[in-house]
């Protein structure tokens, strides 16, 4: 059975160890396609997850509490189909012991949900192997970053979230030496939105850091595996809880540390802030991102229509031109 998940902080190792297939929604061809009937203020991503869940009758869908919009999309979905939806409570705090306990309890609860949907009880050895394999894959993906075009890289990561595989692009293009190094930071960037990355490259820039929710930021560093045989569930919970880097965390200093290191190391000259309509969490960070990194920031609002609008293209081109 397929188990679709909508946040990279849902422990896929745990799903896989139950013998089920975790599928990150970002790669799905039928995700976010077509016009969505959005009412005022509804986030297009949360609406797309809701519609996607409704379409896939034979699958389970995992929502998270990362934002108000996703919590309430879950409410809307669970109202009609409560049995195949799961709301994973991601703690916003991370500096107190309660956060880890919440995470651990949610992993346990997810296990019960998965078993109710045909999953088997996970064997410790299987879980350890899966953790090891996925850690290796993430490491390989992290190393790939400088060797792919930004679109190839986004696609490769999304494929990993889809089926756990790493497919190294056959002919990675040589990076244009004079292209302006930019970072893209923000919420989820789905398959139907990858055209944005082409637009950026066509404008004369290249994305050297994809810090969207579905980009490099979603690649957890390797877990500590010392206690995996004694406490496999704890290893999973710790691995995610200690390495989650996202805008909903309070305080969100981990996000800024993570970004700061990479922006400096990669010589980033400007930031494209990718914000979904109705996403307060990312929109509120625009000024802090400017002030903290002292880099030009272009706020691009994701809309429900795939591809770039002429206005979006024009803004991007002008943004890149300012660096030349």
């Amino acid at each position, binding site marked *: 059975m397929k188990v679709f998940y909508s946040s990279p902080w849902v422990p896929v190792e745990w799903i896989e160890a139950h013998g089920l297939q975790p599928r990150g929604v970002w790669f799905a061809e039928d995700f976010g396609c077509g016009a969505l009937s959005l*009412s005022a*203020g509804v986030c297009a991503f949360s609406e797309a997850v809701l519609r996607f869940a409704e379409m896939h009758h034979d699958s389970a869908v995992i929502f998270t509490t990362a934002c108000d919009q996703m919590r309430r999309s879950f409410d809307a979905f669970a*109202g009609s189909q409560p049995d195949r939806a799961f709301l994973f409570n991601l703690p916003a705090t991370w500096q107190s012991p309660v956060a880890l306990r919440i995470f651990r309890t949610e992993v346990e609860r997810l296990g019960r949900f998965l078993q109710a949907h045909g999953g088997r009880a996970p064997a410790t050895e299987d879980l350890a192997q899966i953790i090891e394999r996925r850690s290796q894959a993430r490491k390989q993906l992290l190393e790939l970053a400088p060797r792919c075009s930004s679109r190839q890289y986004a696609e490769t990561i999304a494929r990993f979230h889809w089926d756990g595989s790493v497919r190294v692009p056959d002919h990675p293009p040589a990076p244009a030496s004079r292209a302006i190094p930019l970072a893209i930071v923000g919420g989820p960037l789905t398959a139907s939105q990858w055209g944005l990355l082409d637009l950026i490259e066509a404008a004369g820039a290249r994305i050297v850091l994809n810090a969207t929710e579905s980009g490099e930021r979603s690649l957890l560093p390797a877990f500590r595996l010392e206690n995996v045989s004694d406490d496999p569930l704890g290893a999973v919970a710790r691995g995610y809880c200690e390495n989650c880097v996202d805008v909903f965390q309070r305080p969100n200093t981990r996000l800024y540390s993570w970004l700061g290191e990479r922006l400096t190391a990669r010589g980033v000259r400007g930031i494209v802030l990718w914000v979904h309509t109705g996403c*307060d969490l990312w929109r*509120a*960070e625009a000024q802090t991102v400017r002030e903290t990194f002292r880099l030009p920031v272009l706020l691009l609002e994701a809309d429900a229509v795939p591809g770039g609008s002429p206005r979006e293209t024009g803004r991007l081109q002008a943004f890149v031109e300012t660096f030349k």
Partner: protein
Amino acid sequence: MNIAPRKLSLAEWDDRYAQLTRAGLKEPAYGGPLRRHIARESDLRLQHLHFDNSPAALRLWNFLLTENERLHQARAGGDKIVGTMKDLGTVPVMAYSLPGVRAFYPDGAWWTPCLMECSDHLLQQAEALGIDASFCPVRAMLPAFLNGEHFPRPDLLICSTGAVCDDFSAIAQRLETLGHSILWWEMPRRRQPDPGEVSCALPGNLFAPQVQVDWVREELQRVAQSLGELAGQPLDDQMLADGIQKANEVRRRLQALRTTVYSAPGAPLPALEMLVAEMLAIHFCSDRGETVAVLGELLAEAEKRVQQKQFIIGADAVRIFWVNPVADLRAMNLLEDWGGRVCGSDYMFTHALDLIPESLPPLEALARTALADPMVGSTTERAARIVRECRDFRAEAVVVSRIPGASHCAREGAIIREAVQKALGLPTIELEIPPVCDAMLLTLGSRVQALIETARARRKS
């Protein structure tokens, strides 16, 4: 002298105040004519509101409108000031359990643009700080913190996070980034206990897994420790138990007031004064003892009017259940002008109206109360309480009032309206009310009147 209940404009209140003074009106230290708040605080909106004509209402308004002044006085008198954010009702119970500590909600600044008719430019200043009109009017809090022209800068800032509104969480994070350190505590998203899980009863006929209550209790223990450090003495169980008893005194009075007003055939008090009175529950408007007195007077006035069958809104008005607080206070006046009356409410803090269990260890009781917050659970559960109260108070229609830009409003209205229609078949509408709604009067009026006409038509059928 028995004066019939009536709503007065500010100018009419000038005369009424003079008359009451001549008759020997006794007022607390913060008393005085309402008009002075225009000169002192630029509360220009008062000129466009209509107020109940009782001395009890005068005391209520003066209490509300002097809060910042009283907080500054308390600071000058050596009290410690705690800014508590988002949880709406729980942390203040803890803070007021300690001597010399006062807690208030900076969130309350969301009404400042309304009261000052945007003459304060707080919303524009918020935009300059990166928080634009796509956020809820609570963004006024951000510049109010920085310019220090409204409430005093708190000695300690506490904010619940997790299953809370994104607007608020994002604005509070921005505040911290700008140098105001915050003690964050986790509020998990309340859920139903799974089969086999230990279940725990919460106020408001709700249930949650005991493990969630344990987490919240542990988080509140951290909060208690910080409050104790601020006060210079630990916040022990006895102090907390006393604090809970006193908070419950406020809640009992409010419950009695709501029952008296909302179940009466006509409305003995206007919707606007009831909205303000309900708001007192969340942090006692920075003075717990005075809150008890203010509510006591209002309750006595309401009971007297019911007994004498003197109503400020007649029995013919359509009984409306109102969901969410309004950014513009005038909206509550307008509803009554258009033929409705409020007969029940969910202003997003129903957990602050329910009694805190006194038979439990105090932190456990507070954890259960905090977790009963309607905004941290599913909208379906919130809707279930709304349905129950619509039934209890014989509502004829429901208004879901959207808060501009608020993340929870994007979806909750549809879920609540569907639940109400399914369970009760009542007509419902959703409205969006900005901080100053004058420019939208035609639209709002036509929508509310359509609802009222529909409800009236149902009476005949």
